[in-house]
């Protein structure tokens, strides 16, 4: 029996690594899912047939419940994928925290009591802290993304916030040290519960000051935490399979976090403790330049006469569910011989890769989706840059305005295109509350309105023969 367990763990590990390896290319990526599912099935069955497992009914019940909730969660609209992802980090954290709690009280109740080596107790404390803080932190993030009414969307900050946050985490860590030194004292159970409670509180406090524009980074960091919680659980349960799978998840979260931070020119600590997106005092603008508003007919004509068009999508496209209309515009333009490309900023949207998935859903071939670094050299030769619900990622002041929070953030050079058409829902400044001078450039034309409605009007121009 033991041999079966060991061999299946090795097999599952290999399959998980292959699953990630195949994600290197969209052509092979679906193979990765099959490898992952196979690895998971092998590991679950090998565990289930161990002789110590006797309460099969409970396991079946929990698995059925998991399917009942998991299947609907996998069918959410793709605009809701960021909150689904946050929710799944929450579930991962919860599982780690609960198993850690169960293990602690099992060990405590075992009269032999040889379980509490300093290393394992330490791992247990880390597992419970990471698990529970990931649980509440991810729930908060999911709530903010879903725009649940009683969770404030805007960052909530107060004086001494970082002091309070670090104090709560520090107290939990200090109690953890106490527990490692005295794992079986009469009061150790209470200390353990206090650690879990502090971690739950810390998760909430951690996410309160975070705004929507930071969500791609925060989701990536929570991903890394969920992975590390699984690693700690592997140390506690003495399972190399868990340590490996958790490390794969954790390193994925780490890499994505680094990429997201770089794409915003910010550090980890700055994201977690900097409260980006809180309303900045308005820039002292010398003179307020006026927008130039364009009609839909005029914009259609500009697009029609272009040879190359670069569309720059942002969160506004996702909010308006405009991706299918984008596809219609893409079709209308390519049919007329216009080269259309999409410029994807790494932090556009609310999670890594968000724009790519939405555009792929609308059947736009992935060969037309171009990364920021590759599209920027082409921007000066671009006839029309169509900005679609993106704002901060095309704001030229990121290049020089040191007083703005987006200073130093790499941007898509929309302003270098010969003509810019910007579709914007309202005349208010963007999420970060920063004026965007792109909109007042000489070669920029504004189209105000909901992205989906504006695009529908544009497409109609091409269809009705008004343009030829």
């Amino acid at each position, binding site marked *: 029996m033991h041999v079966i367990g060991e061999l299946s763990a090795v097999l599952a590990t290999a399959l998980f690594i292959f699953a990630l390896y195949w994600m290197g290319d969209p052509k092979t990526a679906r193979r990765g899912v099959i490898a992952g599912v196979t690895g998971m099935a092998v*590991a679950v069955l090998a565990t289930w047939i161990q002789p110590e497992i006797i309460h099969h009914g409970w396991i079946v019940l929990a698995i059925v419940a998991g399917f009942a909730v*998991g299947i609907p969660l996998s069918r959410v609209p793709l605009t809701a994928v960021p909150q689904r992802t946050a929710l799944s980090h929450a579930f991962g954290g919860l599982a780690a925290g609960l198993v850690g709690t169960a293990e602690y009280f099992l060990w405590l109740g075992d009269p032999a009591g040889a379980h509490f080596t300093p290393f394992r107790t330490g791992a247990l404390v880390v597992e419970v802290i990471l698990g529970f803080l990931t649980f509440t932190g991810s729930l908060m993030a999911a709530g903010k993304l879903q725009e649940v009414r009683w969770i404030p969307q805007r960052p909530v900050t107060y004086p001494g916030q970082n002091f309070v946050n670090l104090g709560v985490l520090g107290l939990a860590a200090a109690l953890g040290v106490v527990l490692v030194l005295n794992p079986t004292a009469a009061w150790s159970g209470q200390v353990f519960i206090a650690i879990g409670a502090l971690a739950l509180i810390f998760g909430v406090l951690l996410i309160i000051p975070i705004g929507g524009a930071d969500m791609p980074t925060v989701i990536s960091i929570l991903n890394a935490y969920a992975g590390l919680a699984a690693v700690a659980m592997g140390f506690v349960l003495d399972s190399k399979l868990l340590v490996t799978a958790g490390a794969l998840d954790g390193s994925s979260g780490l890499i994505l976090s680094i990429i997201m931070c770089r794409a915003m020119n910010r550090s980890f600590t700055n994201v977690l403790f900097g409260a980006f997106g809180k309303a900045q005092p308005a820039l002292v603008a010398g003179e307020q330049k006026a927008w130039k508003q364009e009609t839909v007919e005029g914009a259609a004509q500009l697009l029609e006469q272009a040879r190359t068009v670069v569309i720059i999508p942002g969160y506004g496209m996702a909010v308006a569910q405009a991706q299918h209309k984008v596809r219609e515009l893409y079709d209308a333009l390519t049919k007329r011989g216009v080269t259309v490309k999409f410029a994807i900023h790494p932090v556009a949207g609310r999670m890594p890769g968000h724009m790519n998935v939405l555009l792929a859903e609308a059947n736009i071939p992935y060969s037309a989706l171009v990364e920021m670094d590759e599209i920027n050299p082409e921007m000066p030769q671009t006839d029309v840059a169509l900005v679609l619900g993106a704002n901060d990622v095309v704001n030229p002041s990121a290049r020089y305005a040191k007083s703005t929070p987006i200073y130093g953030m790499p941007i898509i050079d929309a302003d270098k295109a010969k003509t810019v058409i910007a579709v914007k829902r309202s005349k208010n400044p963007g999420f970060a509350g920063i004026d965007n001078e792109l909109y007042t450039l000489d070669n920029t034309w504004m189209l105000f309105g909901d992205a989906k409605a504006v695009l529908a009007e544009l497409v109609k121009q091409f269809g009705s023969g008004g343009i030829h």
Partner: protein
Amino acid sequence: MTDFGSMLFVFVLATFIGLGVIRRVSRLLYTPLMSLTNAISAIAVVGSIVVTGADHPLTIRILGAVALFASMTNIVSGFMITDRMLKMFKKQ
């Protein structure tokens, strides 16, 4: 019981493999990557199965069953939504 040295050894090596493999992942696929790694790390389900199914006190098994439910939800929804998204990526 394995000593903690060899467990740390596994952790460090697995992290390096992870960093190496993930670095090669196509930037187009970051969203499905996250749902896939999330499903994979739900391998924590093996821990929950032991806690739930072995002959433990009732409260312990309830904790295990909730954890098992949470992990299973991640496995099912994670793999299914990853596949659903990957199906949408077409070259032409």
